[in-house]
C-alpha cells in the first residue's frame, strides 16, 4: 500500500480501537467490574466503620478493593487478545494488517487507551465512595496525596491489563490464560508472603502494589512509587516482547 508510515500506524490503531470498542464482552466486563468495585468499597467501608474511629485512612479503605478490582482488568486484557482467536478473526486481521509486530503492539496501545480512563474512574469512585461515607471518622488526607495515589493505582491497573493481554496472546485460549493469571495473582502471590522481601518486591504484583500503597517509613525493603512503577513496567514490557516475538514466529 502506498500510505506514509505515520498514517499507516494511525489507521491500524483506529482499526484496533474499533475492534475493542465493538466487543460486547469488554463493556460487560467494565460495567461488571465497576458495580462490583462499588459493592466491595461499600463492604470495606462498613467494616472500616465498625473499627476504631479516626485510625484509618480513607485511601487505605478506598483502595482495599484494588485486590479484587485487578481481576476485572486481568479479564479485560485476556479478552482483548484472546477474542482474536475465537473463530479465526486473527486470520482476517493478519490479511489486512500483514505486519505482526506492529499489529500486536498497536493492539496493546489501543487497549491502553481504553484502560487508563476506566482504571482511573474505578479507582477514584472507590475512594470517593469511602470519602463520602467516612468523612467524619477517618483521617483527612490532602488532595495532592490522593491524586498521586490514584495515578499510581491507575498505572498499576494499566500495567496489569497489558501484562494480561500479553499472557493472553501467549496462550491464545481464554481459560488457561485466565487460570494462570488469577492463580498467580490470587493464590501463588499471597502464598509467597514468607519469602524474603528483597526477592518478593520484584514480583510484578508486589512491585505494582508500591505504586499506590501509602508510604510507610519504617520498612527497609520499601520501594518508592517510581521504583515500583519501573519494575512493574519492566515486567509488562518483557511479557509484551515475548508475546510479540512468539507471535511473529508462530503459525496463526
Amino acid at each position: 500500500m502506498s500510505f506514509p508510515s505515520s498514517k499507516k500506524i494511525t489507521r491500524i490503531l483506529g482499526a484496533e480501537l474499533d475492534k475493542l470498542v465493538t466487543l460486547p464482552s469488554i463493556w460487560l466486563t467494565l460495567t461488571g467490574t465497576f458495580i462490583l468495585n462499588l459493592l466491595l468499597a461499600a463492604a470495606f467501608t462498613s467494616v472500616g466503620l465498625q473499627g476504631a474511629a479516626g485510625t484509618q485512612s480513607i485511601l487505605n479503605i478506598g483502595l482495599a478493593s484494588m485486590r479484587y478490582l485487578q481481576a476485572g482488568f486481568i479479564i479485560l486484557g485476556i479478552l482483548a487478545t484472546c477474542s482474536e482467536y475465537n473463530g479465526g478473526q486473527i486470520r482476517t486481521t493478519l490479511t489486512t494488517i500483514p505486519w505482526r509486530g506492529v499489529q500486536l503492539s498497536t493492539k496493546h496501545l489501543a487497549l491502553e487507551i481504553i484502560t487508563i480512563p476506566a482504571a482511573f474512574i474505578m479507582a477514584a469512585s472507590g475512594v470517593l465512595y469511602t470519602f463520602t461515607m467516612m468523612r467524619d471518622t477517618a483521617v483527612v488526607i490532602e488532595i495532592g496525596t490522593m491524586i498521586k495515589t490514584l495515578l499510581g493505582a491507575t498505572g498499576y491497573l494499566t500495567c496489569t491489563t497489558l501484562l494480561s493481554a500479553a499472557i493472553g496472546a501467549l496462550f491464545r485460549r481464554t481459560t488457561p490464560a485466565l487460570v494462570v493469571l488469577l492463580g498467580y495473582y490470587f493464590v501463588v502471590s499471597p502464598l509467597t508472603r514468607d519469602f524474603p522481601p528483597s526477592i518478593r518486591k520484584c514480583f510484578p504484583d508486589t512491585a505494582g502494589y508500591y505504586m499506590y500503597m501509602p508510604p510507610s517509613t519504617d520498612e527497609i525493603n520499601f520501594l518508592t512509587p517510581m521504583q515500583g512503577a519501573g519494575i512493574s513496567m519492566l515486567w509488562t514490557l518483557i511479557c509484551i516482547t515475548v508475546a510479540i516475538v512468539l507471535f511473529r514466529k508462530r503459525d496463526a
Partner: protein
Amino acid sequence: MRAFNAELSKLFSLPGIWLAFLIGVFAPAVIAALDSMAQKEEIIAGVSTRLSEVGYIGLGLGVQGVIILGVLAVSSEYLAEGNETGGGQQITTSLTVVSSRIHFLLAKAGAVTVISILLSVVAIMTTVSATHLVLGEYTPAFEWPKLLGAVCYWAFTALLAFGITVLTKHGMIPLAVLIINTSFVSFSFLLSKVTKLALYLPDRAGFEMFMFLSNRFLTPFTGGLVMFAWVVVLFIAAAIVFHRRDVAS
C-alpha cells in the same frame, strides 16, 4: 449409563482438562508444603496455633482444579466453533444424541462428580505425603471424617461451578468469581465480617467440614448440609433454566 460414559469420554478428551488435573493434583500439595515450611519452626517448638489445620489448608485452597473441571464441562459445550467451520456449538450435537435434557444434565453432573471425587482422593494422597515430607514426625494425624469432608467439599465445589456455568453459559465469569473466592482474599470472608449471614455461603459452610476454625459457627455435619443445600438449589435452578431455554440462543 451410556450417556454417562459418553460424558466421561467427552470430559477426558477436553483440551483444557489437563490443566484441571495438573492443578488439582499439585496445587493442594504445593500449598500445604509451603504452609508447613512456613510454620515448621513454630510447630517443632510446639507453639503453633494452627497445627491442626496444617495440610487441610492446601485442600481448602487447592480446589481450583475441580472448579476448572466443573466450568469447562459446561462451557466447552457452548463454545462456538469458528466461522470457518460453521460456527456450531457442541451442545446441539449432544442434545440431538441424548434428547432428554434432564438425562443429559444428570449424566454430565455425574461425570463431573465422579472425576472430582477421584481427583480429590489423589489430591489428599499428594497433600498428606507432602506434609509428611516437610514436617516428618511432627505431622498431625489426618482423621478420616475430616478427609471425607474434604472430598465432599471438592465434589460440591465442582457441582457449584457446574451449576453456575449452566446458568451463565460462559466460562469466564464463574471461573473468575470462584477462583477469587477460594483464594486468600475471598468475597465471602469479607462479607462475613459485614454480616453473620455470610457464614451460610456455600464455601464458608463447606470449610466447616474439614477446617478447624477458631470461631466455629456450624458443626462439620451441618456445614456439609448447608453446602449440599446450596448445590441442590443451584442444580434445580440450572435444570429448570436448561430445560426451558432455547439451545441456539
